């Protein structure tokens, strides 16, 4: 080969490598935080003087003592044990004919059916721990084998080697593209004669059938799926064929169905296929299947209760008419898109919460009471699944709060005392069966629905969860008395029409205990002397008035008129978030005053007016006329105050102003984008800041270098399982353990808890939100949030607010009336902030009314800060895509947003200083200072400041990959240039040779 070709070839090689290295490095720099996170790199460290004892600088202690390898192992063991216990107490036994479960000691040879047994749903696609992908994950097969079962391997291996896959049909709503959606079940032809032989004479002590349903982030479940055009939550043809095959075989002693789903499946078919027992197991995370096995063997007695209504027909919920796949485009969409300056997809979709407060059981049970009492045209066929008169048993398979046990309990309502805001309920629980177990005490309430309420459209659920408690394990014959202190505030209703505030209605109030919401309502109805009650099967029920307590209240619009936290007046903030504000009477809200006249039969369709389009455009910030000059603030005045000096100071301590004076405007603005592994600011004593993301695992891998174990943090069972335990001790414990994991992972805050609602059973992320009931969410958050916070880690609620669907989540406008909003979507977030010490919230992608959540002053400031007393950081959801409605930085900052999630282009860092300086806008600068304080307040008061004192130095660490990439770029450039020079020399030599030849 001639030298010139060698050098040109090598130049080409190095040119390619150089370009790849340069562009690759640019890309890595853009995702610096993510890269550092993935590689487990911290970008700062603390350096203390020699005489400092680190033990003196511990502000938040781990319960295990020093963070080290030995203690990490104890923590890991505890997280796994917690997972198993959560599953044992959270899985819900829905059916258990003739004591089919637990399986007897000799019933060990079983066949597992359903493709899900080989492809279990540990969790659905979202953020959080990837522990379920690790070697430390235990699947159903392994858990059952470990528990002593002998499994039909012929069929199991056939499932395992099958090419069938489940596809969640993730939809990219920006690009309107669908992923492949697959039910993931085998066709009946899969079960060949050879396979059928495998259970003909063996492995037929029980058929354990597992069905899965899967949504996820960006994946709404279908109301009419691509497979059969039916609800994704319904039983599908292949599943029916499978069950029929098992039934027809006549070989199995017992048929047990496991529902492996974070969504409420439609289960009206259990009797049809002679299913003996059904256990809802949710998404069990990486260790929960051990709990499932323990329930099957009887090692654990199930004590979970549903936190959703299991409808016979999921689309019978009125919320489905306008939500999810029934979102609407403006009827004048073309005109809207022409007028709007936002992105097309950002302003195209809307949903009206026509169902008002009637979500989940609040609809089914309220309509039930009205049908029993013969009021409100409740028996109308509108909303009926059968097309006939509405009938409770035709609509509900299992009510909210339902759950069986291997034993029986008796609960007696001993006493109710009302003292100020406290309603103290005393209940004695006795185990009257023959198996030890725990019992959940569910306390419900009914408040009056009278003429005032009808006139002013104050809607009332016939029954509402007020609080709950759980016993210890009670041996047969053993009793325990629980005292549950409930919050009277939860009995108040928001009157947005007349009082424009919370009211306590005039009339009779009832406290009731019951096995579930329906049972409690039947008890209330019994106390009212009603007749004709039924249970969910349609069987007559008389109710038990002894399980109720009645008292009366006078009309009261003052007690909850002011915030109990801040003293701020609580009054209408969201009038403009109601479509009726913009277009007269375009929405008729569902009202129990007349079900027939108000039940929504079709989605609300309206044309957006010019004023509405203008309001949809989110660039709303204007510099106030009285804004101070930038020069009236001191910035960049280095006084040597480190962040450590702010530890423990109040949120409004004057020293914060002094501390903030040290920052330049650019330094503060550089703190606005959240890359999930944020660089330190050594001069201000700010270390690198890393958040976690959940809700079912904080998401990270432990440092093998530091702690000798590089595995993932625990993927706990899904949040619905946790809620279904009705056990606040377990909720608090999960919080504590996640806080401990976050300490090992160096996290300041974790984006959990998931507090959105199961507005419909189809919400893509229902699996990681607690319940259909906002009060359930409110109550569950408090202990879990407190548990996390107890370790110096901030529990960040997400996604504030109304982000109850994944379909069109980018910018879908959610309209509502203020009662529905305050008592449902907002209530879901209130507990953690007002009572659970939560100091971080992540906003939703959606709009509420016309405004993106992050751009709503009414939400971010008027309610969150002024009413709820929130002190901490408010973050957008990920704005990586840079959609137009995400990029109104001045507006969002001005209303209270502090942090911009995955603002990869760092638009906030650029736009805000420019706006401040070009407009001499001291108002925006003041707000930027507040955002900086909000951000650093939670950092200063987190466990990552353990080891820091005012004398500590924060030292930046350059990630090793930056050095490697820099060296590679330099080396490739050098080699490339060298090869080109050598090529040039070679060509000159060739030329000289040619010339010499020509001369000679």
């Amino acid at each position, binding site marked *: 080969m001639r030298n010139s070709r060698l050098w040109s070839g090598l130049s080409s090689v190095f040119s*390619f490598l150089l370009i790849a290295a340069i562009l690759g490095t640019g890309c890595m720099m853009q995702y610096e935080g993510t890269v550092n996170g993935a590689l487990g790199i911290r970008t700062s460290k603390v350096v203390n003087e020699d005489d400092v004892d680190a033990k003196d600088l511990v502000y938040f202690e781990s319960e295990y003592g020093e963070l080290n390898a030995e203690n990490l192992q104890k923590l890991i063991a505890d997280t796994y044990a917690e997972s198993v216990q959560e599953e044992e107490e959270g899985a819900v036994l829905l059916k258990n004919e003739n004591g089919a479960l637990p399986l007897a000691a000799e019933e060990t040879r079983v066949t597992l059916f359903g493709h899900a047994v080989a492809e279990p749903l540990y969790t659905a696609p979202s*953020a959080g721990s990837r522990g379920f992908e690790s070697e430390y994950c235990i699947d159903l097969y392994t858990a059952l084998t470990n528990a002593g079962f002998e499994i039909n391997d012929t069929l199991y291996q056939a499932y395992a080697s099958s090419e069938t896959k489940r596809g969640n049909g993730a939809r990219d709503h920006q690009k309107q593209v669908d992923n492949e959606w697959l039910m993931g079940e085998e066709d009946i032809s899969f079960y060949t004669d050879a396979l059928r032989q495998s259970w003909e004479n063996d492995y037929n002590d029980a058929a354990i059938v597992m069905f899965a349903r899967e949504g996820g982030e960006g994946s709404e479940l279908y109301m009419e799926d691509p497979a059969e055009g039916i609800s994704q939550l319904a039983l599908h043809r292949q599943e029916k064929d499978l069950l029929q095959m098992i039934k027809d075989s006549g070989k199995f002693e017992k048929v047990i169905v496991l529902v492996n789903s974070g969504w409420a499946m439609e289960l009206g078919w259990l009797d049809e296929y002679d299913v003996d027992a059904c256990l809802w197991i949710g998404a069990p995370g990486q260790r929960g299947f051990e709990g499932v096995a323990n329930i099957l063997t009887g090692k654990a007695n199930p004590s979970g209760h549903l936190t959703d209504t299991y409808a016979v027909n999921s689309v019978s919920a009125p919320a489905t008419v306008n939500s999810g796949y029934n979102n609407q485009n403006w009827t004048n969409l073309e005109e809207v898109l022409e007028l709007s300056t936002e992105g097309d997809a950002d302003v195209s979709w809307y949903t009206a919460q026509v169902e008002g407060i009637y979500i989940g059981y609040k609809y089914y049970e309220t309509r039930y009471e009205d049908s029993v009492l013969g009021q409100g045209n409740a028996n109308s066929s509108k909303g009926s699944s059968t097309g006939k008169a509405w009938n409770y048993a035709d609509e509900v398979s299992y009510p909210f709060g339902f759950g069986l046990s291997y034993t029986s309990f008796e609960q007696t309502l001993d006493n109710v005392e009302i003292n100020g805001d406290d309603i103290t309920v005393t209940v004695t629980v006795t185990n009257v069966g023959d198996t030890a177990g725990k019992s959940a005490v569910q306390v419900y309430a009914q408040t009056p629905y009278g003429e005032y309420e009808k006139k002013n459209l104050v809607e009332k659920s016939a029954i509402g969860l007020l609080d709950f408690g759980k016993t210890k394990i009670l041996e047969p014959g053993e009793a325990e008395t629980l005292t549950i202190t409930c919050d009277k505030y939860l009995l108040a209703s928001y009157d947005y029409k007349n009082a424009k505030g919370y009211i306590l209605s005039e009339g009779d109030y009832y406290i009731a205990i019951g096995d579930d919401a329906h049972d409690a309502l039947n008890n209330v109805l019994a106390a009212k002397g009603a007749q004709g009650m039924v249970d969910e099967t349609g069987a007559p029920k008389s109710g038990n008035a002894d399980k109720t307590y009645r008292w009366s209240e006078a009309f009261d619009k003052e007690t909850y008129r002011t915030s109990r936290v801040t003293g701020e007046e609580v009054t209408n903030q969201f009038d403009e978030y109601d479509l009726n504000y913009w277009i007269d009477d375009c929405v008729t809200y569902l009202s129990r005053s007349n079900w027939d006249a108000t039940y929504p039969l079709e989605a609300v369709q309206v044309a957006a007016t010019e004023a509405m389009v203008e309001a949809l455009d989110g660039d709303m910030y204007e510099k106030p006329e009285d804004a101070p000059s930038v020069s009236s603030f001191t910035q960049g005045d280095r006084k040597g105050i480190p962040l450590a000096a702010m530890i423990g100071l109040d949120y409004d301590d004057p020293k914060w102003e002094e501390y903030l004076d040290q920052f330049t405007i650019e330094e503060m603005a550089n703190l606005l984008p959240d890359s999930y592994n944020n660089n330190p600011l050594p001069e201000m004593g700010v270390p690198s800041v890393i958040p976690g993301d959940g809700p079912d695992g904080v998401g990270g891998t432990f440092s093998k270098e530091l702690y000798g174990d590089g595995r993932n943090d625990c993927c706990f069972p899904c949040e619905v399982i946790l809620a279904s335990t009705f056990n606040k001790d377990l909720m608090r414990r999960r919080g504590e353990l996640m806080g401990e994991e976050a300490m090992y992972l160096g996290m300041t805050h974790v984006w959990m808890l998931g507090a959105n609602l199961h507005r419909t059973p189809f919400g893509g992320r229902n699996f990681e939100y607690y319940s259909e009931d906002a009060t359930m969410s409110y109550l569950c958050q408090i202990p879990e949030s407190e548990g996390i916070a107890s370790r110096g880690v901030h529990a960040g609620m997400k996604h504030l607010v109304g982000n109850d669907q994944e379909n069109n989540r980018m910018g879908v406008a959610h309209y509502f009336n203020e009662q529905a909003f305050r008592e449902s979507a907002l209530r879901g977030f209130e507990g953690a902030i007002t009572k659970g010490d939560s100091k971080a919230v992540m906003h939703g992608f959606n709009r509420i009314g016309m405004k993106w959540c992050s751009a709503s002053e009414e939400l971010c400031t008027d309610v969150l800060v002024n009413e709820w007393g929130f002190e901490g950081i408010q973050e957008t959801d990920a704005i990586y895509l840079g959609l137009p409605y995400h990029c109104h930085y001045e507006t969002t900052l001005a209303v209270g947003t502090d942090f911009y999630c995955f603002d990869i282009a760092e638009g906030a860092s650029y736009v805000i200083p420019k706006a401040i300086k070009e407009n001499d806008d001291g108002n925006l600068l003041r707000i930027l200072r507040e955002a900086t304080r909000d951000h650093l307040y939670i950092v200063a008061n987190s466990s990552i400041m353990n080891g820091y004192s005012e004398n500590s130095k924060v030292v930046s660490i350059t990630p090793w990959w930056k050095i490697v990439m820099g060296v590679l770029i330099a080396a490739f450039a050098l080699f490339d240039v060298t090869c080109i020079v050598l090529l040039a020399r070679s060509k000159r030599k060739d030329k000289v040779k040619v010339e010499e030849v020509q001369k000679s």
Partner: protein
Amino acid sequence: MKEKLGTKAIGFYVIVFAVLMALVSMIRFLMWAPSHAAMDMMIVAFLIIGIVIDIVIMMKDNDYLTIAATACYSVAVARLLTNSVGSFVDAFQGINMFGDATQVNTIVSISIIMGIGVVSSILASFLKRVRG
């Protein structure tokens, strides 16, 4: 024509192949990118420049231009991959947030064709393109 082709060596045909790969990948990219919010004119521009350079090389061989053509194709493929990081992240995480996980197969297939173009261009740089 036959006479002209008779003067060409193996490297010439490798360059022709590289041009074909660049053309195919550009057509595929143009068919795919606009409907998936992935359009990047820099990718198209560098592919076109690379193709033009290779055509010039076919007419008048030049070692420096082969390096330039390789560099152009390299920029195109590297930009496509770096632009698509969000989609790869989503595919890995099983969610749809940063990009479009559903498009990973298409992105990879276009990148492979572009990558073959880069390798061909590099190979052609080592090879004799004109006889004699």
